[in-house]
């Protein structure tokens, strides 16, 4: 541990999902010696789902996260499709799941931008704590706040229409889906699409204007070069439900491309560090020192060759005009890229709702040749999500490995925390609450889902040491 005389803790992190904290160690002159993001919660999904029948997985593992349950629901379902030998869903099954997924992306991105992040962007990072929340936004910008509420509601209504329930639904089953979309459900959603499109365009414009107006700040604030990882379609297009892995370097050069999810073990590993229950993923080709990467909206907009819906593609091109066509490596550019995806989602939703396959009645594909192991991936709101399962001949799970989106951003979030602490806090004569919120603004840009990321379970340390200032152990207790 570095030499330090003061420790500041931001706990709990707020306006993020899940449990995290930041610790900052300072010397006598308030210079930052170390700043870290710790994930302090654990639950143990990988172990305690062993022995459960595999068909429970979509409804079981979605309880990792209440903000993006659809991501885990669908990723587990895709893995199970593979296990029962279904490589191609029926058109109705595939499109219902896609509609559910893009509804989820839409509601999650709206929630993050309007409910969680907008107070920082509208009022300033050091605005009074009483005002710096969504209730404050309702008071000062009621139209904008109500738009956010109604956009999130639209996404949730899509989830309800496809999964049966707004949080923790049951739509996806092995090989398909358990309902189609009725004409009445379709028409209710279609009636909202134009309004949602208009508001999404406006949201992109707000995020773009924010970035351009504050370009001097956001060019530095928590900014650093990184690799970027995302699934892309075979033709290089953005695809959030399915695709193969592409990783690019900070300058845009490709590191890997079109790697199938089944081959992920060749490319990705995770390092364990003593001070967080969240592991640190990296590309094996580059190793832990330089192989870490960003995921999520920024990485996806950077990694794809194009977006196959016209309005979002136009927005993507505007985004790249600012960087002269190379990837953006700014933490605060997550907001703009997230809103581009929000727009893309409503375009996809509009197209899907006009597709008659959603009213089809061939919901489940027949099983093919059984496999004992499968790996599925999708792009969750926060980034690339991996579910890897092995099952035995009794249909019981024997191994589960889950690499969630937020875990992939662990190193990047820690770098953002360290850089903002160094740039904004180090040496400040007085460290105010508003100054500390700067750190959280940096973490929030990644929209971390810390519940998702804490499925690992530790145990109470069996040994407790008392260490003096010189680092000598002066006392030691061991639990019987």
């Amino acid at each position: 541990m570095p030499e330090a005389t003061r420790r500041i803790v931001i706990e709990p992190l707020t306006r993020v999902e899940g449990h995290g904290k930041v610790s900052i160690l300072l010397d006598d002159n308030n210079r930052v010696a170390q700043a870290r993001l710790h994930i302090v919660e654990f639950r143990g999904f990988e172990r305690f789902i062993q022995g459960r029948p595999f068909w429970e997985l979509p409804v079981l593992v979605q309880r990792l996260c209440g903000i993006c349950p659809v991501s885990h629901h669908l990723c587990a379902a895709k893995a199970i499709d593979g296990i029962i030998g279904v490589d191609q869903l029926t058109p109705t099954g595939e499109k219902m799941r896609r509609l559910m997924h893009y509804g989820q992306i839409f509601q999650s991105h709206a929630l993050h931008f309007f409910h969680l992040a907008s107070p920082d962007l509208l009022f300033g990072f050091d605005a009074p704590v009483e005002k710096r929340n969504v209730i404050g936004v309702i008071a000062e910008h009621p139209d904008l706040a109500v738009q956010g509420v109604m956009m999130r509601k639209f996404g949730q209504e899509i989830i309800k229409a496809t999964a049966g329930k707004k949080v923790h639904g049951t739509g996806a089953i092995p090989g398909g889906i358990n309902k189609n979309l009725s004409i009445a459900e379709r028409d209710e959603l279609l009636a909202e699409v134009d309004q949602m499109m208009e508001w999404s365009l406006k949201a992109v414009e707000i995020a773009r204007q924010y970035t351009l107006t504050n370009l001097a700040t956001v060019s530095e604030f928590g900014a650093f070069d990184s690799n970027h990882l995302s699934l892309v379609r075979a033709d290089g297009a953005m695809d959030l439900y399915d695709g193969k892995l592409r990783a690019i370097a900070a300058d845009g050069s490709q590191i890997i491309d079109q790697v199938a999810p089944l081959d992920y073990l060749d490319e990705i590993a995770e390092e364990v560090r003593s001070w967080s229950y969240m592991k640190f993923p990296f590309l094996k080709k580059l190793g832990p020192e330089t192989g870490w990467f960003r995921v999520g909206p920024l990485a996806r907009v950077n990694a794809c060759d194009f977006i196959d819906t016209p309005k979002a593609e136009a927005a993507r091109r505007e985004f790249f005009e600012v960087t002269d066509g190379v990837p953006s490596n700014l933490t605060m550019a997550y907001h703009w890229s997230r809103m581009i995806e929000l727009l893309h989602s409503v375009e996809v939703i509009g197209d899907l709702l006009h597709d008659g396959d959603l009213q089809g009645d061939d919901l489940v594909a027949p099983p093919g040749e059984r496999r004992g192991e499968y790996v599925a991936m999708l792009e969750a709101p926060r980034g690339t999500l991996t579910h890897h399962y092995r099952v035995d001949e009794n249909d019981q799970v024997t191994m589960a490995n889950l690499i969630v989106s937020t875990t992939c951003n662990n190193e990047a979030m820690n770098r953002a925390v360290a850089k903002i602490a160094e740039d904004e806090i180090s040496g400040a004569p007085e460290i105010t609450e508003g100054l500390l919120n700067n750190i959280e603004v940096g973490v929030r840009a990644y929209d971390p889902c810390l519940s998702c990321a804490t499925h690992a379970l530790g145990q109470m340390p069996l040994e407790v040491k008392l260490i003096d200032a010189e680092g000598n152990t002066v006392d030691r207790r061991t639990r019987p």
Partner: protein
Amino acid sequence: MAKAKVATTSLCGCFGCHMSLLDIDERILELIELVDFDRSPINDFKEIQGPVDIGLIEGGCANEENVKVLQEFRRHCKVLISVGDCAINGGIPAMRNMVPLAECYEEAFLKGPTVVNPSGKVPDDEEIPLLLDKVYPAHEVVKMDYHLPGCPPSADTLWAALTALLTGKPVDLPYELVKYD
């Protein structure tokens, strides 16, 4: 008349119950006419600021920090409500109560197919709170006044319970709002 104070927290939960509270959608405009929010994940109050009329607890207790927060809520809240299956009976996280802890440790930090851990050690920093031996429902740690079941309870369930309490009426939920799933 002064507005009632409401505080909320998620202990060992998934934030799904908080999402369900946000699913009251535009009724949030009515809600903020009736209440001010004290500590909650949707604002930046890190501790409870003063006396609270209604506290909403999502999740059970899995670590010492959860217990501390739940006790803080009990001290300051006149009415404390277990919201959702995890607060009421531990929920899915309580499935770990059936498994020896050492095995969970090994699975996550030593045995997983993507794990790289040359030291062979598991995370043990003092910044990380101690885990409890089991996941406990909220009412086994402090007295709880109401229980709203569901995974999560629907927005209508939360709305009916909150508006009844805030207007001094009995919390008498119709059958279709009380669901266990």
